[in-house]
């Protein structure tokens, strides 16, 4: 088979066609910053530097897709939340001690953020535009729309407060607040499509089984993810759902959102997940970003990548880290992940 570009490879998998090999789409915003010699704090308001970090890192390692992200606080900030930028080496954080809303009913009077104007969302979009212009003809570019409805609500209300209110507040009030957060995210997701992104995604990890039960996930988070997915994909861009942590219990629910891509973390059993998903979505994952990617050897990374490819048959798969790669990931470990796709993930058609 003729060698494909990274973009062709990823699009073939998304189109349920057979690529020349398994594509590698690592989640690299911190690693890319380190590779480019930038500090997160110096680039988290600068779309040009964000794009440049990905361009330099992708050029050095030759992976197939870039995931644009800079922290979990940007959409919340655009909604009006206070954000803390006190550590230039780490992603910014939402000040949850001082939440934007003190009552979930306040959302009915709140304006939605404008992705073209508010906070640092324009910088994210500039990064997407620049990256698409520079390498988008050959590299898959996923422009995240930051946090999904449930995560965004946690950040705007304060996670501790919301966890309490999941038990004490009227479900309808929580539901309406989540609906506001879904709409806020939708606007950003559409803007990512308008900026040229090949796909977009949300992180909704607080809704995962590490924090709340599958029953609570279904009661509060799932329907909003389903609606958001349909709205985004109807707008013409594949949508990806990122829930890190142990999501073995909700893989079927994640598929039911209609997402084109499911980003799963290292605790997920890829063989079982692959059987459950059964080609209805692309699984993206799931090498542990800490061990082996930061602390293991290249041989350990190779073994894990091989196991993932064998567990899934290499089908409907973006080989990736389970979540965001650490900035201290050794160069040889990154190369081992990419080489594993070439060694074990080729298809002879």
């Amino acid at each position, binding site marked *: 088979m003729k060698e494909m570009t990274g973009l062709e490879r990823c699009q073939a998998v998304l189109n349920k066609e057979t690529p020349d090999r398994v594509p590698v789409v690592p989640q690299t915003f*911190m690693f890319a910053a380190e590779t480019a010699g930038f500090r997160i704090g110096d680039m988290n308001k600068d779309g040009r530097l964000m794009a440049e970090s990905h361009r330099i890192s992708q050029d050095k390692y030759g992976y197939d897709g870039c995931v644009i992200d800079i*922290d*979990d606080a940007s959409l919340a900030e655009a909604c009006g939340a*206070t954000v*803390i930028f006190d*550590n230039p080496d*780490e*992603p*910014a*954080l*939402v*000040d*949850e*001690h*001082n*939440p934007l809303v*003190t*009552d979930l009913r306040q959302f009915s009077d709140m304006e939605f953020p404008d992705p073209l104007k508010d906070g640092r969302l324009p910088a994210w979009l500039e990064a997407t535009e620049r990256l698409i212009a520079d390498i988008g003809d050959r590299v898959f570019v996923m422009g995240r729309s930051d946090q999904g409805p449930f995560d965004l609500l946690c*950040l705007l209300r*304060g*996670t*501790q*407060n919301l*966890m*309490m*209110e*999941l*038990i*004490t507040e009227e479900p309808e009030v929580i539901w309406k607040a989540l609906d506001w957060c879904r709409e806020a995210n939708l606007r950003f997701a559409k803007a990512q499509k308008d900026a040229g992104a090949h796909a977009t995604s949300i992180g909704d*990890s607080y809704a995962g*089984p*590490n*924090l*709340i*039960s599958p029953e*609570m996930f279904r009661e509060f988070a799932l329907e909003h993810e389903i609606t958001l997915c349909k709205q985004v994909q109807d707008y013409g861009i594949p949508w990806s759902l990122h829930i*890190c*942590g142990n999501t073995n219990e909700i893989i079927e629910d994640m598929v039911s959102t209609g997402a084109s891509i499911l980003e799963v*973390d*290292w*605790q997920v059993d890829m063989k079982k997940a692959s059987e459950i998903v059964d080609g209805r979505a692309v699984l993206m994952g799931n090498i*542990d*970003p*800490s*061990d082996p990617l*930061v*602390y293991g050897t290249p041989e350990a990374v190779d073994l894990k990548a091989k196991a993932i490819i064998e567990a899934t048959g290499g089908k409907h798969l973006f080989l990736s*880290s*389970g*979540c*965001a*790669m*650490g*900035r*201290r990931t050794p160069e040889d470990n990154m190369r081992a992940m990419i080489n594993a796709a070439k060694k074990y993930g080729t298809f002879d058609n």
Partner: protein
Amino acid sequence: MQQKSMAHSTIKIIGGFLGSGKTTYLNRILSQAVPDAGIALVINEFGSVALDGDLIIHEQYSMMEITGGCLCCSLKADLITGISDIIKNEAPRIIYIEATGLAVPDEMRKTLEKHFSEEDGVTVDPVTVTVDCLQYKKMKGKLRIYDSQFEGSPGIKLTKTDIYPEDLIEEVNNHIRSSHKDIKIVRPAAGRFLFNSTLNNQNNETGHKDNIQTITLDREQAQKVKKDRIQAFCRDHSDKIIRMKGLIKNSEIWEDVQFDGENFFSSELKKDYGGECKMVLFTSDENRDEIAQKLQRYF
């Protein structure tokens, strides 16, 4: 892992859900430690201002804060790297880790056990989890991350026991005992860091309002806070302020100031703190707006 020093370090993880009293418990341990005890602290706060880290009694302890990053992944790498650095550079006798209330403490223990061993001169102790009785009654069995605090049968420390009715404490005690053998009841020193019993007068039968609100001063406001005035403000509104904690600087002296709903405490930091002034007040739902407005006038 290879260590330069052969000194032995013991890692002790303190877990517990958000607001369960981990910082109180850690401060209690530190206040009883002898000078030069060889203690290092790792404070893992998630998604919040690192105020609790600042409030740790830390005159004679090294302290590292881990914030940011994803709960399940990059944070783990930061934790391992941070502890490796502490052991290499300081060879402390004990490393206390205050885990974020949204972490699973036993998962943290397993991660550390995988990376640090007796051969390296490191022991990872069983986890201790702090439990607020009222929170336990509200959340046990209802919220996954709350239940996850009890994974791996940790040692349990009940906190805030001086403000809850005995029957509530006994009920929770018995409930936990049914699944955990080594329960110990901690009765913290009265006053400091605790919700005050005035709550019992104004709220429901179990002692707390469902929602406690926070009012956080911004940096500019916190810089203007004078100890005498904030003490008077807290005293004048003691029926509405449940708790206040802050770090302020008056006349070039840093002070840790606290109000527990009844009493005001302040203590001078022996070292120059070197950070920013911070202050947060806790009120009930119904009083938040009033206190926030009065604070605006205060500034």
